[in-house]
């Protein structure tokens, strides 16, 4: 081991098995350390994003990949004339518009419940969170049985309260709502955990002060809780929205997009065109539109929530 005294008066540096300075070693290691992740991100994320744009301007079918040609905006023109696209867009927006407020509302309510100092709070946290760790495929299969018209547990329970059997997944009017209900049950625990972390940071004194002023439960919620967790709420709304746009597994497993396209979503359409019809060009155009919808929505939300 040798000692080198460098320019600075008090800077004494030791080094081992190397002719490089410490700073130089750091830079070299920095490049080596970031290289694997960057190569992988480039190959499996950046390149595919670029390819999605390129393919969306091409007539390209996986069955005859050698015959791909640039066709300009043809795929986009076709998309905006495709009635199924507007159905899929409408279904996706409907799902998002209902799931986001309902799921976040349920999650906030549950978070407030399990944030109280009662003995069963931690048990409640585990119960509300359990559906989150259950995979969506498992959940979708399980609920298909629960929603069964003649033998399902849900219709039996409704019968008990004097309500007649509902068609649920078999009806174009109820299928999407049934998926929405199940999706909220599955994921609310996730947002609950984030809200809970936010609630823990609200100083107790604020509630005490509100109580002295004679505030009731609703006033405390409205004037203390909500303003204190504002930034958490904003974040939860954005991630829930992005998650909602990606709806695919539920319709794939439970309804196959039906009945009469009532649960067909943008991602379902993208999958169908890409991997059943093998139409890379058209499917890529759907992917680009989907990407832009997600991007613009989250940017608009971010702007709105900042105000």
């Amino acid at each position, binding site marked *: 081991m040798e000692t080198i005294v460098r320019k600075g008066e008090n800077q004494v540096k030791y080094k081992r098995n190397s002719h490089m300075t410490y700073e130089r070693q750091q830079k070299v290691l920095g490049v080596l350390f970031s290289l694997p992740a960057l190569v992988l991100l480039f190959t499996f994320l950046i390149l595919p994003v670029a390819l999605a744009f390129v393919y969306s301007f091409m007539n390209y079918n996986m069955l005859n990949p050698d015959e791909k040609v640039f066709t300009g905006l043809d795929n986009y023109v076709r998309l905006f004339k495709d009635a199924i696209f507007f159905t899929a867009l409408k279904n996706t927006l409907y799902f998002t518009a209902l799931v986001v407020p309902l799921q976040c509302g349920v999650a906030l309510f549950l978070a407030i419940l399990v944030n109280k100092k009662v003995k069963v709070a931690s048990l409640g946290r585990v119960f509300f969170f359990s559906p989150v760790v259950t995979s969506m495929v498992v959940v979708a299969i399980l609920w298909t049985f629960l929603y069964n018209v003649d033998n399902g547990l849900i219709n039996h329970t409704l019968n008990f309260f004097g309500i007649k059997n509902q068609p649920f997944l078999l009806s174009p009017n109820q299928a999407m709502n049934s998926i929405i209900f199940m999706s909220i049950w599955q994921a609310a625990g996730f947002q609950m955990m984030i809200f809970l972390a936010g609630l823990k940071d609200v100083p107790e004194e604020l509630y005490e002060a509100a109580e002295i002023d004679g505030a009731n439960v609703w006033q405390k919620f409205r004037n203390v809780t909500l303003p204190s967790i504002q930034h958490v709420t904003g974040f939860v709304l954005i991630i829930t929205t992005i998650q909602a746009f990606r709806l695919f597994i539920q319709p794939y497993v439970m309804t196959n997009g039906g009945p009469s396209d009532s649960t067909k979503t943008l991602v379902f359409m993208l999958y169908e065109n890409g991997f059943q019809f093998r139409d*890379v060009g058209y499917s890529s155009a759907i992917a680009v539109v989907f990407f832009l919808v997600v991007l613009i929505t989250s940017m608009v939300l971010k702007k709105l929530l900042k105000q």
Partner: protein
Amino acid sequence: MTNRTKKRMGKIGITISILVLGFLFISPLLWMIIASIKPETLIFKDMGFEAFIPKQMTFDNYSKILFSDNINFFHYMGNSLFTVGMIVLFGTIVNSICAYALVKLKFPGSDYVLLIIIALYVVPFESVLIPLYIVVNKFGWINQYPALIVPFIASAFNIFLFRQFFMGFPKELEEAAQIDGASPWQTFIKIVVPNSKPVFATAAILTFVTHWSDFMWPLIVATDQSIQTVQIGIQYLFTDNNIQYGQIMAALTLTTIPVILIFLFFQRYYVQGITSSGVKG
């Protein structure tokens, strides 16, 4: 009513609400587990509260899906454990060193790299599905294990998670190692890694739970049964013409158990991962 009894009444009300809602939330999973140990004929016969009581217990459903030749559930589970285990192993290494480099080993251009990684975080996986398939196909990986592993090793989210942690890592510890004569590599391996166990645990657990549930991608690249994962396996049991409900319930339960165990044992790290990404992100 005095203030005190009012408080006590409130607590009782909250306890009851948690218990009732808790039962409603857990009941579908409870039904799944109990139906899996019932004989086939009783699963849709027991309704109401009877649905949650196993009057006749049997483990036939489990032995059938685990030990009969035509289902091979062990095989699906093995594929899932192997592929997800590989993603976790290589992912924690690759993402942690990248994050460390971006925070502590600044090199020319490293700030731009960070900006790009944060920007990539907003790309929904579904929008790169088709081109990714074509890239993976070019590598000749369709129906090969690398297709299920390699594209998911590097993760913008995990790099960000590690970055948040390393930014708060005490500079003094690293400087002390430097003064003791350690190289940057030695500092990372001997000082930083042993003192960063929580973030490694968090990243590993979040990665495991995320990829254990993967469905869309394996559906596309794993059309050959030999490499199919458990999520695809249960989907096949479900779409079988001769559907066996008890066996499906057993399969659903077995698919869920690994994640439930991880959640129960590592709850703290798991929740930390969710909330730290959320509240600070």
